[in-house]
C-alpha cells in the first residue's frame, strides 16, 4: 500500500532523512519509533505530500506522491504533530471545511460521522480556541479521517495527552485499523506501539535502523528477568549458564543479558532457588535502547 524507496531529504548541508526505504502492506499498522529529530515527521510529511523529497520516491497504492499528489491526498489522511487548526472556527465548521477540501460527496454526513468517531459530537458547536489540548488533538484526527481514507498517517497522535486521553485515542486508532485501513503512526510511548502496531520501524539520525514484526522483536529473548524465592547464592549458578553475558541483582529480582535464547537453561538453573517468575521477552524499550545505543557509538 505504501512503498518508500531511497527517500532522502536535505536542507542545505543537513540531511533530515537519508536513503529511507520500507514497504507497508495493506491493512498493516506500522509504528515509527526513534528519538526527536530522527526524521519520523519528515518521512511522514513526504508521504502525505506536504513536503517534497530531495531524491527517492514515495508511492501510495501505486501512485507516486511527487507525480500526482492530489490523487494520493484524496485517499490519504494526515494528522501532523501540531493539529492544523483554525482556532476561530467551531469544531463542526472546521471539520466540514476539511471535508469540502477533501472533496467528500456528502459533506454533512461525513462531518457527522467523523465527529462521532472521535467523540466530538457534544462539543461540535464550540470554538476550537476554547478546547483543551486533548480535544484539539481529536479535531486534528477528525480532519484526517473525514474523507474515510484508505491510508492514515498520524504523527504523534497522543502527544501531550493525559493517560486517560491516551487510552481513548489508542482505542480510536484500533477501531480505525479494523477493516483493511493502512496506518502509519509515530510515538514516543513504546507501550503504545506494542499495543496497537503489527510492525515497528526504528529510525535514528535519518536512517532506518531496524524493522520487524512486533512478535519477532519481542521473541528474541536477549534479556531474562527472574524472581526467586531464595535469591542467596543463585548468582554463581546463573552466571554459569552458557550464553549469559551479564547479570544484575536487585533484591529477589535478577536481570540477565544473554547472547541467545537460553530461557530453558536459565529456568533449570533457577529452580533450586525457588523460581517464582521468569520473563523472557525482550521489551521494545530494550530493543530501542540497544539500537539507539549502537547508533550513538557508530
Amino acid at each position, binding site marked *: 500500500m505504501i512503498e518508500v524507496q531511497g527517500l532522502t531529504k536535505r536542507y542545505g548541508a543537513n540531511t533530515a532523512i537519508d536513503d529511507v526505504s520500507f514497504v507497508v502492506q495493506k491493512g498493516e499498522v506500522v509504528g515509527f519509533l526513534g528519538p526527536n529529530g530522527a526524521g519520523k515527521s519528515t518521512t511522514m510529511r513526504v508521504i502525505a505530500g506536504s513536503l517534497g523529497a530531495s531524491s527517492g520516491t514515495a508511492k501510495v497504492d501505486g501512485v507516486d506522491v511527487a507525480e500526482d499528489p492530489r490523487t494520493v491526498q484524496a485517499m490519504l489522511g494526515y494528522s501532523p504533530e501540531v493539529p*492544523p487548526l483554525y*482556532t476561530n*472556527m467551531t469544531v463542526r465548521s472546521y471539520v466540514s471545511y476539511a471535508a469540502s477540501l477533501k472533496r467528500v460527496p456528502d459533506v454533512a454526513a461525513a462531518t457527522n460521522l467523523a465527529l462521532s468517531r472521535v467523540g466530538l459530537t457534544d462539543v461540535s458547536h464550540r470554538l476550537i480556541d476554547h478546547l483543551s489540548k486533548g480535544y484539539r488533538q481529536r479535531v486534528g484526527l477528525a480532519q484526517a479521517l473525514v474523507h474515510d481514507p484508505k491510508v492514515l498517517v498520524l504523527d504523534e497522535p497522543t502527544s501531550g495527552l493525559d493517560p486517560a486521553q491516551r487510552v481513548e485515542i489508542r482505542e480510536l486508532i484500533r477501531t480505525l485499523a479494523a477493516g483493511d485501513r493502512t496506518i502509519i503512526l509515530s510515538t514516543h510511548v513504546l507501550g503504545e506501539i506494542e499495543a496497537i502496531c503489527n510492525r515497528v520501524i526504528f529510525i535514528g539520525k535519518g536512517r532506518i535502523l531496524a524493522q520487524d514484526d512486533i512478535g519477532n522483536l519481542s521473541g528474541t529473548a536477549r534479556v531474562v528477568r527472574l524472581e526467586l524465592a531464595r535469591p542467596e547464592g543463585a548468582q554463581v549458578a546463573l552466571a554459569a549458564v552458557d550464553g549469559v553475558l551479564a547479570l544484575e541483582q536487585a533484591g529477589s529480582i535478577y536481570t540477565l543479558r544473554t547472547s541467545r535464547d537460553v530461557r530453558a537453561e536459565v529456568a533449570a538453573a533457577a529452580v533450586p532457588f525457588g523460581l517464582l517468575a521468569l520473563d523472557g521477552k525482550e521489551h521494545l524499550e530494550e530493543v530501542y535502547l540497544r539500537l539507539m545505543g549502537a547508533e550513538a557509538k557508530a
Partner: protein
Amino acid sequence: MKPILVIAKRELGGYLTGPIGWICLVVFTLIAALFYNVVLVQIANQSMQLGMEEGLTEGVVQGFFGNLTVIGLLLIPAVTMGLIAQDRRERSIELLLTSPVSSLQITLGKYFGALAFVLVMISTTLYLPAMMYWMGEPDGGVMLASYGSFTLLMAVFVAIGLFASSVTDNQLVALAMSFSLSLTLWIIGWFGAALGESSLGTILGHISMLSHFDTMSGGVVHINDVVYFSSTILFFLFATTQRVEALRWR
C-alpha cells in the same frame, strides 16, 4: 473550480467572525462618510463662489475616491496580512497543503476570499451616491468609472497584500511589507516626474498606479489602464502561487 470557492468562503467567513475584519469595516465606513461630507461641502462652496454647476459629480466623486484610496492603502494591508502568514504561524497551512488542492487553487481561494470582503467594505459606501441621486442628477458614467477604478485599485492592493503575506509567517512583517510595496507602486511616478523626460522617468511614470488611476477615475476608461491593473494583479498572484508551492519544499 470548487476548491477555490471553498477556500474563499472560509476566508470571508473568517473576516466576519474575527476582530480585524470588523475593525477595518467600521473604520472604512466611518472615514468614507466623513470624507464624503468634507468633499461635498468643499465642492459646494467652490461651485457657489464660481457660480458653476458643470462637473459637480466629477468634483465630488473624484475628490471622494481620491481621499479614500489613502485609507485603502492603509487598511488593505491589515485586511490581507493574515491570509497566509497566520496559516503558516499556526500551522493550519498544513491542512491545505495535504488536501487535494493545488497551490494555484490555494492562492486564488485566499485572493477571492479577501477580495469579497473588500467588496463588502466598498459596498458600505453605496448609500453615498444613492444620496446624490436623491438630491440631484449626477453623471452616471463618471460615477461608474470612479467606482470601477477604485475597486480595481483595491483589487491590486489585495494581490500585493496576499503576496506579502506569503513570504513570511509574521503578520506584522506582512503588514509593513504590503504597505511599503503598495505605497511605492502608488507614488513611484513622482520620482519619474522629477527625472523629467528621461527614459527612466517615463518608465517609472508608466509603472506608477497613481497616473493610471487618475485617468481612469476621471471617467475615461482606457484599455491600457485596465490592462495595467489586471497585469499587476496577475503578476502578484503568480508570485504568490510560486511562494505557496515553495512551502511544500521546506
